[in-house]
């Protein structure tokens, strides 16, 4: 699953730590999601979308391999 979190976070001028604090997770979690090493749970995906003021489907999109799986 690919995402636009880094892009949106940087446009808001937040560090990974600041976004992590707003979403009640650790900076490592945000870093892993941004680098596509970890797909968040639905709960966190919605929280991220709310904090970044976008819809979930704007934030995440399946990569080419992922859509076939």
């Amino acid at each position, binding site marked *: 699953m690919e995402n636009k979190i880094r892009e949106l976070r940087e446009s808001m001028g937040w560090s990974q730590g600041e976004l992590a604090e707003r979403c009640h*997770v*650790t900076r*490592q*979690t945000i870093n*892993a999601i941004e680098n596509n090493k*970890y797909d*968040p*749970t639905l709960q*966190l995906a919605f929280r991220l979308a709310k904090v970044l003021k976008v819809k979930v489907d704007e934030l995440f999109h399946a990569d080419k391999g992922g859509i076939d799986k």
Partner: protein
Amino acid sequence: MTNKQLRLVKLILWICIVAVGAKITFTYFNSQTIESYGLFAISIFIASLLELHTFGKTSYLGGNNREQQDELEEHIVKVSSKISYFALMVIVLIILAVTEFRNEDITNIPLMLVFCATIVTLPFVQFLVSKKYK
């Protein structure tokens, strides 16, 4: 736990590991016996130290259970639990093979039972958990 406290706890754990390790070695060379309590204690200390390095907290030495687990932390625990289960199965098999390879029949029945339990436990738990979703 602050960074200073974390460093202090890690240092204390290292001292405990070295001290207990030295005591086990000393006892072994003096009386050719292995202190089982010492082995148990050292495994708790090593597990705690590894947890502290990984998550910055430990569940063995009275960690704060109320503290909510981070999502990535939960994921790491889930993935490593699965790997650990199969690693443990292989370790038990190796110990069984090493201790019993000279014997025609297996004499260490408890270890054989443990090995059989490692084979059955996962499918059994999967069966029970799947009931929840039916």
